[in-house]
């Protein structure tokens, strides 16, 4: 087990470095001219030249990358000679737009993204796994067909359409819920947990509709497969209560692929639910990334993309480790 952990952690670090390098390459070499993007409107050739120096773009590419990575361990100075300013640790560069440290911008956005992720996650796991299990237990029945049909439709509902529809109906027409405000970042705020729930309920539902559809499908398929296995027949033959067979033997064995999905989706969602945050004006990472992408604020988009990829990779490794802990066969592969 320890060897497995070491091996996975080793490849994790390599993958993280590779991701940071590739992101850096895409964002630094990709744009026709980052310097003129940084320099903004009313740009003169001299100011572009200044911006190039300020961004360190007169340096060789690998030096730029090394500088960037150094910022992750220690504070560094950014800016044109004479006009430098400190970029605090962990330094991810400075915003072209506001000259703020990118890490500050990310720190500010993260609580919103977390709020979005947590609620949506609970909602779609409960509904997805619950309905999937129900469908599997009543395979072939009308309930099953309805749930499977609903999942097919759910997976085809684009977030912009569902999101706007929810806003239209529940906020604009029925006045049941308030429009999302960015004053409530966490359930621990002064408004209390209930206001937090009401504030994020619609984004949660918008996300859950899409996500739970895939959870229903996977849960149903895997549970049906598991219920067909020999050990379930054995458990039944032993005369165990149907409830015990279903939950203690069946669900336990059949739920593992769902755990994998869950791990991956958590990683994905921590990088920001781009569309949902945009529609409901929740200023999380995804929202910030869209703003930055449209205004050409490269350091911000680059840092958020990198961070999101990190979350996905780490989640992936955590899932693998959890698997290895549960199932010894995995370690030997």
């Amino acid at each position, binding site marked *: 087990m320890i060897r497995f952990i070491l091996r996975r952690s080793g490849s994790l670090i390599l*993958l993280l470095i*590779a*991701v940071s390098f*590739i992101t850096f390459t895409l*964002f630094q070499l*990709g*744009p026709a001219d980052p310097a003129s993007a940084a320099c903004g409107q009313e740009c003169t050739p001299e100011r572009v030249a200044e911006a190039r120096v300020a961004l360190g773009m007169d340096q060789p590419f690998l030096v730029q990358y090394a500088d960037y990575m150094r910022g992750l361990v220690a504070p560094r100075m950014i800016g044109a000679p004479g006009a430098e300013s400190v970029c605090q640790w962990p330094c991810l560069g400075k915003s072209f737009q506001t000259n703020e440290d990118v890490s500050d911008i990310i720190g500010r956005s993260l609580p919103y993204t977390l709020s979005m992720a947590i609620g949506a996650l609970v909602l779609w796991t409960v509904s997805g796994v619950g309905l999937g299990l129900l469908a599997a237990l009543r*395979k072939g029945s009308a309930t099953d067909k309805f749930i499977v049909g609903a999942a*097919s*439709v759910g*997976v*085809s*509902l*684009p*977030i*912009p*359409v569902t999101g*706007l*529809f929810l806003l*239209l109906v529940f906020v*604009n027409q029925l006045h049941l819920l308030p429009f999302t405000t960015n004053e409530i970042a966490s359930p621990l705020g002064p408004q209390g947990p209930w206001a937090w729930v009401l504030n994020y309920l619609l984004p949660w539902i918008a*996300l859950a509709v*899409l*996500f739970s559809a*895939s959870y229903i*499908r*996977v849960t149903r*398929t895997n549970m*049906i*497969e598991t219920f067909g296995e020999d050990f379930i027949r054995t458990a039944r033959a032993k005369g165990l209560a149907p409830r015990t067979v279903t939950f203690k033997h069946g669900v336990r064995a059949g739920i*593992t692929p769902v755990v994998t*999905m869950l791990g*991956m*989706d958590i*990683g*994905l*969602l921590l*990088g920001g*639910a*781009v*569309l949902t945050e945009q*529609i409901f004006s929740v200023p999380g990472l995804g929202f910030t*990334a*869209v703003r930055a*992408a*449209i205004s*050409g604020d*490269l350091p911000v988009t*680059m840092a*958020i*993309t990198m961070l*999101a*990829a990190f979350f*996905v*990779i780490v989640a*992936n*490794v955590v*899932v693998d480790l959890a*698997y290895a802990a549960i199932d010894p066969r*995995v370690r030997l592969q």
Partner: protein
Amino acid sequence: MNRAPPLTQLQSTAEPGAASSSPAGNGAPSGRSKAAPKAGPAGEAAPVEARSLLATAWLRIRRSRIALLSLCVVVAIVLFAILAPFLSAVSGNDPFTSNTSPEVLDDFETPGLPLPGYMYPSAGHWLGVEPGLGRDLFARLAHGGQVSLTIALLSTAVSVVLGTVLGAAAGYFGGKTDAIISRIMDLFLAFPHLLLVLSLTPILQSRLRDTPLGQGSFLPMASLVIILGFFGWAYLARIVRGQVLSLREREFVEAARSFGASHLSILFRQVIPNVMGVVLVYGTMLIPTNISAEAALSFLGVGVKDPTPSWGQMLNAAQSGNWYLSDPWFLAVPGTMLIVTVLAFNLLGDAVRDALDPKASRH
């Protein structure tokens, strides 16, 4: 197994077992023993292969009412998009002419909102007119469909070619080639799809601006095709690789080798024709993903931009200025079209998979 397409929809749900060697192995054949029977019927005669594949799919689709219906809807939508210029000519409107005269658009209460006679379907404007600029909604929906579907189909084609060739090469050559390509696949799967595509699209557009690809309304289309195509191949490649791993040990490959066929010839003449089944399945499933992705990007304002219409751009137009709150019609028109299209392609994809991937259709 009954898992949605990779990078599902807008939030692009990560696949289990996608970015690492997780044991779930959803749908992807993981070992020889499992995958071998799958390639069975396809293995014998390469020349008739392509026909029998589509014929198999068709036989299966014909038997299911839902599959047949979704195929009809897909054909209808594709025809609707292809015939867009013709249809809008018949309706007497084009997607770009605006009409802001006070007879068409409100000037007092809600400035810009179409007046009653122009809001909903009528003989003059089959779906009414757009708020703000008064352009014909039907013409924009049809032309927008052309743009959305072109982007989705071309980017799918790019992903399918890349995924098939790279996946087959990884599986066939093994060793270092496999290690390198597999690591690249892992990396591509690790990036949050939408976020990366979102932030790179403006960058690519700034690059393309001075090239022949970057002229006028061509620029957003070309950049979306390149970006979506380039970042969508990894999942398909992984599946193809798994299939090829078992194929390359089969007799007909060995026979070709003993005749002295070159590696490239074996790869393209023997191996790839035999994985066309999974390619067709996962290619079909990529189409709705890319339709959604185009809609998402254009909705966010980085894809297709006004005046060029696309379904995502129309959603964007409905949201900007909160027109959809003034009247849900502006959300309903592109929204319904988008949902019906994605749903039809998804159901068709399920049907194709059930037909060509026996392992997945046990239930």
